[in-house]
């Protein structure tokens, strides 16, 4: 019990120290600089470099089916562990589904209609929240320079920026394919679970990325490994950093 706890605290302290140094030196640090990772539910964690959401990184969830469920699945574990999350510019979020996925609603702030202040709102939230999800950036006309500014802010603050929608330059990109629902018949049954193949591309991963079959959501609403899932890792290579 003692040794890992000490190691954790040491790691935490180092991360903080590095962050302070980075900030004072105004050097653009690598996304891994923080040394801390927000936990993610186990079946997804196996797909992510570092086994979770790296603080300071930017994650994109391009518009595809199951993107919202994927967002909830990413948030759930961190939220249960005490992290604060915010979702900007996304009205109509199914919060019952979020709760079923394991997101703690009391730590999930919503800014459904930021209007023209999307940038200002996101910057303000990155200061205080652990995860900030932004939707509608394209609609609000967020340009490349502003995207970089947000990413830099997230890096500096040790927050995770999740973009719902296209986000060129993101550290990671998660998407779902081969989506199929289980439990539905012709006038019988009910929606029970959805089998998807989650693909992850980005920094820290091989060019081919990783993918795995998951149940998103599984019958209870949370994420689970598909019964016949195996992590497909084209060729594992050691990536520096």
């Amino acid at each position, binding site marked *: 019990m003692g040794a890992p706890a000490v190691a954790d605290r040491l790691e935490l302290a180092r991360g903080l120290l590095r962050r302070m140094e980075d900030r004072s030196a105004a050097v653009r640090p690598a996304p891994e600089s923080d040394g801390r990772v927000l936990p993610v539910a186990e079946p997804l964690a196996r797909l992510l470099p570092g086994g979770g959401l790296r603080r300071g990184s930017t994650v994109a969830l391009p518009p595809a*089916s199951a993107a919202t469920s994927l967002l909830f699945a990413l948030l759930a574990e961190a939220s249960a562990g005490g992290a604060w999350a915010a979702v900007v510019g996304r009205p109509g979020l199914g919060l019952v589904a979020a709760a079923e996925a394991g997101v703690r609603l009391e730590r999930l702030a919503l800014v459904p209609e930021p209007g023209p202040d999307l940038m*200002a709102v996101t910057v303000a939230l990155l200061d205080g929240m652990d995860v900030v999800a932004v939707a509608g950036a394209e609609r609000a006309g967020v340009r490349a320079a502003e995207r970089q500014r947000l990413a830099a802010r997230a890096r500096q603050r040790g927050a995770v920026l999740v973009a719902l929608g296209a986000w060129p330059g993101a550290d990671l990109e998660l998407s779902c394919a081969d989506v199929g629902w289980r439990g539905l018949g*012709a006038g019988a*049954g009910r929606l029970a679970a959805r089998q998807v193949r989650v693909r992850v591309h980005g920094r820290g991963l091989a060019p081919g990325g990783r993918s795995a079959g998951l149940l998103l959501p599984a019958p209870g609403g949370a994420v689970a490994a598909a019964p016949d899932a195996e992590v497909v890792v084209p060729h594992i290579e050691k990536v520096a950093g």
Partner: protein
Amino acid sequence: MSAVDAPNGAVAPVRASSGEPGGATRVLALWSPDWPVTAAAMAAHVPPHRPAAVVVANRVLACSAVARAQGVRRGLRRREAQARCPDLAVLDRDPDRDARAFEPVVAAVEELAPGVEVVRPGLVALAAQGPVSWFGGEQEAAEVLVDQVAARTGVESQVGVADGLFAAVLAARRALAVAPGDTPAFLAPLGVEELDREPDVDRSELIGLLRRLGLRSLGAFARLDAEDVASRFGADAVHCHRLARGLDPRPPVRRTPPEELAVEVELDPPVDRVDAAAFAARGLAERLHRTLASHGLSCTRLGVAAQTVGGEELHRIWRCAEPLTPAGTVDRVRWQLDAWLTRRRRSGDVPAEADGAVARLRLVPEETVTAGALQLGLWGDVGEARERAGRALVRVQALLGPEAVVTAVLVGGRDPAEQVRFVPWGDDRDLGLPAPAPGSDERPSRPMEPDEHAVRTKSAERTWASSGPLVAPAGWPEDVVRRTGRTSAAELPEAERMRTTNRRRRVPAPRPPAGRATPHEPPPSWPGRLPAPSPATVPPQPLPAELTAADGSPVLLRAPDLLYGLPAAVAVDGGELRQVLGWAGPWPVRQRWWAAGSAEASRLQVGLHDGEALLLLHREGRWWVIGEYD
């Protein structure tokens, strides 16, 4: 009555001498019985002869005397109360409305006696010496005040006079004047549960302990040694012990706080809306508490002062039995501003609309005590992460308005949209309250929804469902906790539970009469609620959809649970046709059949070829998309 026209200044010098430190001061308390019911009945135009009760989470919180005569009691379930008294008018709880409606009463008392302090809506206290010597006796003063309140506002009230606020309140409940020095004798035969009448503080644990120890009356408790009480029962019990002995709860080291403790904010632009005022109040209250905490003080009497654009100065003192928490301060400031703003709007004597707006707001701690253990409760329970997140969210609120940042609370309901209620950040997430409680009729509403009839019924139903206490089942919190966090309140970590007991409760849960075990209530079930997984996207307004069979003919309902044909394709909101791979349902929903305007509906889940699935609702001959599983 010449006394009515008495200049206030004539009484003031007498009162000034009454506040000096020393023995417990003579306090006159004016109490209006069952204030929540009175206020709610006035707002709902329920005639006084009709029995009425305020119900929170299916339990009676307060009832009128007429209802009490018919067997309605505090803590009763709504169903049982209605069974005992079929004519009962069931009203919602709304602390803002209570405070707003009480302002005229305070103003009426203030016409006769200065230095009026509001303890809570329904109860004011003032130093007795002034009015008593002016009107020539306690009996006379009480009569004049009760007459004045009844004449000006039509509200019934009772007056009690005793040494100290606690005894005066108890005397007011019994309409007694306790002779000077007789207070301990007056208190002695009363039950210990009288210590737990303050809605802000929960002392049920201490009361239960005392009863189990056989200390059933205040006199028995008072006979204990103060040292023994301090060493065995803790700090709060020491306060209670002092109360039981007829002393001031805190040693009288009343000093006038230095001027710099007062905080002030200039409101630019001036605030004339209640929600905006509440937002300003929150920031100011936090500043006040930071200032007080840095001096190691907390506040037991709060002066709220405002200056309107028209130059009018408004001032009111709120007195509290317990030191104020930031949340308590915000509540009181909000109530006061609400009362002022509403009064001005109603009276119509405002020359121009803008003149009534509040331009400057000032909080003055009129009386402070050393913070002691309260300081921990103020900030100790606030985690660093929470504080950081809170600051960021308040910044966003400053940018977009207080309503723009929300958190969701799960409530009972069947459709996905019904089950969620949004609470602006900083407001109470407690479900006992009807959600957008503060002056929902005055605050500008959200953008209106499309004019289409069916959409409107749907949305009306939704807002109704999300704010109406009628659908609010008992025991929500358990249900919600079970659904969200998978830990119930009892399983909370020690620190959390400490927090909930340490912090003062903001919403007094209706408690059954002391001494009886709380009946265990199973969490409510919502038969017909779709099981998990729920749709990840819930359109803010239902989208119209066309469900068609293979030959292109529309698929509608023959009976609530029978489709006309086999669905083959669906088009959402006039979009392209998407192939339907499978479907489940239709499941009829019959709810609120007792309310006018509610239509029968059926739900259908359809799976589409592109991997998406939709939750459709059939209502009034059309299909609507009420959820997307994406």
